[in-house]
C-alpha cells in the first residue's frame, strides 16, 4: 500500500470525526451519528479497500513529481481561517425571520419512514462505487 494515500484517508476520517463533533455541538445528534458512521467508518473502509488495489509508483515517475508541490499551498488553510474570522467580525448579516427547525424525531422514524428513499440511494451509490473499483482496478488496461 502507498503510505501517502493512507495518510489522506486517515486525514479524511479525522476530519469527518471533527465534523461530527461540531454537528453534535450544533444540536444535530442524528446528523452527527450518520456523519461518524458513514464518513469516518464506511467511507474510510471503501477508500482503504480501493487503495489496496493500487501499485507503487515507479521511481522515474516519482522523480518527475516534485515533493514540495503541496507545500506551495500550505498558506491556503491559514488564509481561509483568517478570512472567516474577519467575515465573522465585520460582515453584518441581515436579520431573517427563519421558520422554526423541525422537532427531532426518532432515528428509526427518520430512517425507515421519512427518508427511506435516501437509504435506497445510498445502497445504489455504493453499488456504483464498487463497480467503479472493479472497472478501474480489476479489469486489464486497454
Amino acid at each position, binding site marked *: 500500500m502507498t503510505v501517502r494515500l493512507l495518510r489522506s484517508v486517515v486525514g479524511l476520517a479525522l476530519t469527518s470525526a471533527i465534523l461530527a463533533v461540531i454537528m453534535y455541538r450544533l444540536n444535530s445528534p442524528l446528523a452527527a451519528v450518520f456523519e461518524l458512521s458513514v464518513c469516518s467508518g464506511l467511507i474510510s473502509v471503501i477508500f482503504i479497500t480501493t487503495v489496496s488495489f493500487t501499485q507503487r509508483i515507479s521511481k522515474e515517475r516519482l522523480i518527475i513529481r516534485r515533493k514540495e508541490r503541496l507545500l506551495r499551498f500550505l498558506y491556503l488553510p491559514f488564509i481561509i481561517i483568517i478570512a472567516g474570522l474577519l467575515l465573522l467580525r465585520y460582515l453584518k448579516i441581515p436579520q431573517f425571520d*427563519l421558520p422554526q427547525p423541525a422537532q427531532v424525531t426518532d432515528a428509526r422514524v427518520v430512517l425507515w419512514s421519512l427518508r427511506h428513499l435516501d437509504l435506497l440511494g445510498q445502497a445504489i451509490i455504493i453499488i456504483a462505487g464498487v463497480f467503479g473499483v472493479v*472497472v478501474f482496478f480489476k479489469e486489464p488496461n486497454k
Partner: protein
Amino acid sequence: MVALFILVPFILLLILNLPFKFLKATVAFWLSAVLFLIQPLLILTHPWFTWSNYPAGLGRFLIFKLWLDPLALIMLFTIGIVVFVSLLVAKSTISTEKRSFNFINLLLVSFIGMNATVLAADIFSLYVFVEITAVAVFVLMAIEKNRFAIEGTFKYLVLSMFASIFILTSIAFFILAAGEISFAGIHNAFLVNSNIILLNFAVALFLCGLFIKCGVVPFHGWVPDAYSEAQSAVSVLLAGIATKITGVYVLMRLFSSVFVLKDSFHNLIMLIGIISIVFAALAAFRQNNIKRMLSYSSISQVGYIVLAIGCATPLAILGAVLHFFNHAIFKSLLFVNAASLEKKFGSTDMPIITGLGNQLPVTSGTWLVGLLSTAGIPPLSGFWSKLIIIMALFNAQRFTYGWIALLASVLTLAYFLFMERNVFFIKTEAAPGDRGGVPFTLKFCEVLLAAITIGAGLGFPFILNSQIFQLKGFLY
C-alpha cells in the same frame, strides 16, 4: 406503483450480481433490454400504473414520496428509449464479456438514477439521484481506460464537483429559509416572501451549479472532451439523456414550477441560452472530428431549451419540453451514426473518412434525417419544437432573442451540411481503412431513431392534441 420505476431495475441489478455462473453479459443484456423497452411502452398506456393497492406488509417499503406528473411521464418515456438504444450500441461496440457486463450494470445504475431524478418530490432526493447518475456516468466514461477518455472524465468530474458544492450549499439555504426540502414547501416559501433574500441567494447558487451540469456556455469546457472521447454507447447515453436529465430537466422542473423568481433571473437564463446557441454553433464550424462537432451542436441545442425555460411562458415551457424530447432522439441518432462510422473505419476524423455515401447508405440516410431535424427543417420533429420556442419568444415580446434563435438555425444547417458533404458525398481516391460492415444492431438503432424523428414530425399535430394536451396538469 410509481416506485416500481426505481425498484424493478434495482432488483434486476441485485439479481444480475448474484454468484451464479449463468448470469453473464448475454443474460444481462436481454433482461435489461426488456426492462428498458417496457418503460416507454408502459408510459404510452399510462393510466393503468396509477394502481395503488400495495400488498400488506411489503407495501410500506414501496411507499416512497414520489411525484409523477405529465412532465415526469415524458421524461420517463425519453429515458427508456435512449437507454435502450445505448444498450444496443454497446452490444456492437464493446467486445469483451467482462466489460460488457460491467457496462450493463452501470447502465442500470444510471437508469435508476435518472428515473428517480424525474420522480423525486423534494430537492434533496433530487440531488442524491442526480449524483448517482453522475457517478455511474463517470465510471462509464472511463470504461475503456484510454488516456483521452480518462482526461474527459476527469474534466467532467472536477467541474461536476464544483456544481455539487454550489447545489448542496443552496439546498442548505433552502432548508434555512423554507424550513423543509419538499418542492411544495419551497414554493410556499417563495409565495410567503419573508426570506426572499436568502431564497434568491440560494437560487443564484443553484443556478451556477445547474449551468455547469447543463454544459452551457461559459461552463461548457468539459462537454466536447466528455462526449467525443467516451466510448460510443456512452456518448449516446451522455449526449442523449444523462446530462439532459441531471442538468436541463432539473432546471426545467425547478424554474418552471417550484421557484417564483424576478425577471432578472429569467433574463439571465435567457442570456446564457442565447449565448450558448450562437457560440456553440460557431465553434462547431471549426471542428474536424464528427463527435466534437456533435458535442458543440448539443451545447447549441441545449441553449434553445434553456432559452425557452428562461422565457417561462406556458408556450415556451411546452417548446422546451418538446425540444428536450426531440433533441434526445435526434442527438442520439447522430451519435449512433458516429458509432457506425467509428465501427467501420476506426475513426471519426473528417479528413480521414470521406465519400462514404455509397458504402453506408443507411447511416448516410439517417444522418440526413438527424441533421435536418437538428436544423429545424419541416416536417421533421425538430422543426415543430423550434417553431414553438420561437413563437413563444415573439409572443412574449422578446423579438431580439427570437430573431437570433431563428438565424442560429441557419448556422446549424450550414455546419451540418458541410459535415454531410465532406463525410458522405465528396468523391475521394483515398479509401479509409475498412474494418468490415456495420452491425445490424447499429443499423436498427439508426432506423428506429430516424423513424421516431420522422413520425413525431409528420404526426405532430395529432400527437399534440391526442397525447400531450390530454395530460391533465401539463401547463394548466
